[in-house]
């Protein structure tokens, strides 16, 4: 047994006196039993929880988007919470329904920021909603509120003056539309028409197509619009007639699933036999469900005639690619937790999809969100958020692309995938020529 000599005691005493003044502040942060008042937690953070705020469509014709995004994110958050959370804190999602309408979205955001005092905003759905919320983030910039991974590929949250208040994970509509135009032009389908939602989302996609066509010295061949909130039961005959008159060789739809499914239905019925592309926001599985169900109930025979010319761009890999670790984890956790939409927000019945691109996106968003929260350490502060995001460099999410962020890079992923319907499900398109040429 080692004996403590008087000299050793004196030496250690002197050493303690030398370092004590510097150690004291650190101890005050860590030690709450020493009579010091416990330092205050950041808003939205308690000893047991980190609360994130989400406003999305949980009602109306686009409710499938908010619900599926929420389900995917919840599957991962539930998993993390079951494993002990982040530094002992569970991740909680405080959700509100905005029905994909700007005014409720703004009200919900105010509530989340000022009343609920959430730690950050997460998983907002839609361009018309997010573009109205962005100025509020700027207004309250002294409180360091950030919007993480909105389900929109529009530009306003990617560029000044509001780009500094949001972090995007998914590719932009500009990238999606450019990819679609490039591929259509490559297979000699150069007369491209646009069917779009008459709002900021539609305009964002329209601008993307216009920009991409300009690159080839071409213009949009024809365009038709619809009102946000249009249901599948609505007629799109006029829109189809307008586009048909422009003799397009392909149509790019910038809309949500109900209206786009109605357009596809009427386009096929009126003989517009050209490839019809949809952006990732459309909600591919819900679109397919509507068309398949309609074909069956209307006794139109096989739904294949309505789906064979569809090509949907995606911003996450196919959920069928179980060889990717994140996809396998997604499938496992969706099966295990089978997350349900928030019951208090459900105004009408909703049949969730077992797997979907939207819920997979929500899952991957949550996965990166958890990683960022972990990087904040034991005492998360909003003021540290941006710096924590910038430490995400070449980060492996478990898909075929690594995520990176930086002061000049506020979008983590860049890849766009193209899918077509085969045997009643969306699969990756491997050859555009064979399919559409």
């Amino acid at each position, binding site marked *: 047994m080692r004996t403590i000599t008087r000299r050793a005691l004196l030496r250690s005493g002197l050493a303690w006196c030398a370092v004590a003044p510097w150690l004291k502040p650190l101890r005050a942060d860590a030690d709450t039993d020493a009579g010091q008042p416990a330092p205050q937690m950041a808003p939205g953070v308690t000893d047991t929880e980190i609360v994130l705020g989400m406003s999305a469509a949980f009602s109306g014709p686009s409710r499938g988007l908010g619900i599926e995004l929420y389900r995917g994110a919840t599957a991962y958050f539930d998993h993390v919470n079951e494993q002990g959370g982040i530094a002992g804190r569970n991740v909680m999602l405080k959700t509100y329904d905005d029905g994909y309408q*700007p005014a409720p979205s703004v009200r919900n955001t105010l509530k989340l920021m000022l009343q609920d005092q959430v730690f950050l905003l997460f998983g907002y759905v839609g*361009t*018309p909603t997010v*573009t*109205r919320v962005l100025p509020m983030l700027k207004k309250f910039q002294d409180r360091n509120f950030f919007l993480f991974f909105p389900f929109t590929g*529009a*530009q*306003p949250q990617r*560029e*000044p003056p509001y780009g500094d208040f949001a972090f995007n994970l998914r590719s932009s509509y500009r990238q999606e539309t450019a990819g679609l135009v490039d591929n259509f032009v490559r297979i000699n389908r150069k007369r491209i028409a646009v069917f779009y939602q*008459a*709002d*900021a*989302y*539609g*305009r*964002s996609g*329209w*601008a993307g197509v216009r920009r991409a066509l300009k690159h080839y010295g071409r213009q949009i061949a024809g*365009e*038709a*619009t*619809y*009102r946000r909130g249009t249901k599948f039961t609505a007629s799109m005959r*006029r*829109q189809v007639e*307008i586009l048909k008159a422009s003799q397009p060789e392909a149509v790019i739809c910038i809309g949500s699933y109900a209206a786009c499914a109605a357009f596809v239905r009427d386009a096929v019925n009126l003989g517009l036999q050209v490839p019809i592309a949809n952006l990732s926001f459309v909600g591919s599985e819900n679109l397919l469900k509507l068309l398949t169900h309609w074909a069956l109930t209307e006794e139109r025979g096989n739904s294949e005639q309505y789906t064979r010319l569809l090509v949907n761009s995606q911003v996450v890999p196919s959920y069928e690619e179980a060889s990717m670790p994140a996809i396998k984890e997604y499938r496992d956790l969706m099966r295990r937790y089978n997350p349900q939409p928030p019951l208090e927000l459900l105004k009408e019945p909703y049949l969730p999809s077992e797997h979907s691109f939207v819920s997979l996106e929500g899952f991957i968003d949550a996965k990166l969100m958890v990683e960022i929260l972990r990087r904040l350490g034991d005492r998360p502060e909003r003021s540290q958020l941006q710096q924590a995001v910038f430490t995400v460099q070449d980060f492996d999410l478990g898909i075929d692309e690594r995520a990176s962020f930086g002061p000049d890079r506020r979008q983590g992923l860049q890849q766009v995938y193209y899918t077509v319907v085969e045997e009643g499900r969306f699969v990756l398109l491997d050859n555009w020529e064979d399919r559409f040429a």
Partner: protein
Amino acid sequence: MKIQKLFQKTLFGVFSLFGLISLSTSVLCIYTVDTHLSEEYESNSKDIAKTIADSSVDILLNRDLSALQSLIDQFVEIQSIRYIYIADEEGEFVAHTFVPGVPEEIRTGDRNNTATVERSLPGMGDFVEVGSPILAGVAGTVHVGMDTDLIALKIQRAIGRQVYLISIILVVGVLAAIWFVNLAAKPLGDLLAYAVTLARDRDNGADDTLLARDDEVGQLARLFLYFSEGVPAEGEQRVSSGNDG
């Protein structure tokens, strides 16, 4: 009966006067409200077009068009504004609120013209369109379409409220006039009846109530009684004046 005729004439006169006042006030009110509101709607729309034009410069030059669309979507929520479109310097529609598409008349029209024009768009209705140049026109133009039917409806409502008030005043005035004329005519009617009775029965026809009145009717009643009893020699008795109580 003379009193009734007098009453009818008075009433007719009062009614005509009130009617004339009401009619002229209503016409003036309709003209004023119509002119002012029409001018105000047009002026407001021009202000909106100018506001959008001023706000659009930065967006058109530096930002994505979705921000521009978001901007006009907020303005089109204002009642009576039915459509907004923005054409760039080359005349391309870079943002608009039309569904299912830009109408033919607007597509083929002069997009650089910012003068106020009236449009009739098939399937949409009649509109007054105002315009404003963006960056003195070198960056494009903003056009705001007001629904004339909706404006007309609003003007009609505003006018309707004023005419409704005037009509109520007319009805109340006429009813009050009837009541007042009736009030004045009733003693005259009583006096006439008294005179008739007195003429028929000079000894028992006296009406104490009428004779006790201290107004012109009382004086006339006493005068009738005096005449019915036979006129005395001059200077024998003087008819009391109206001020003797």
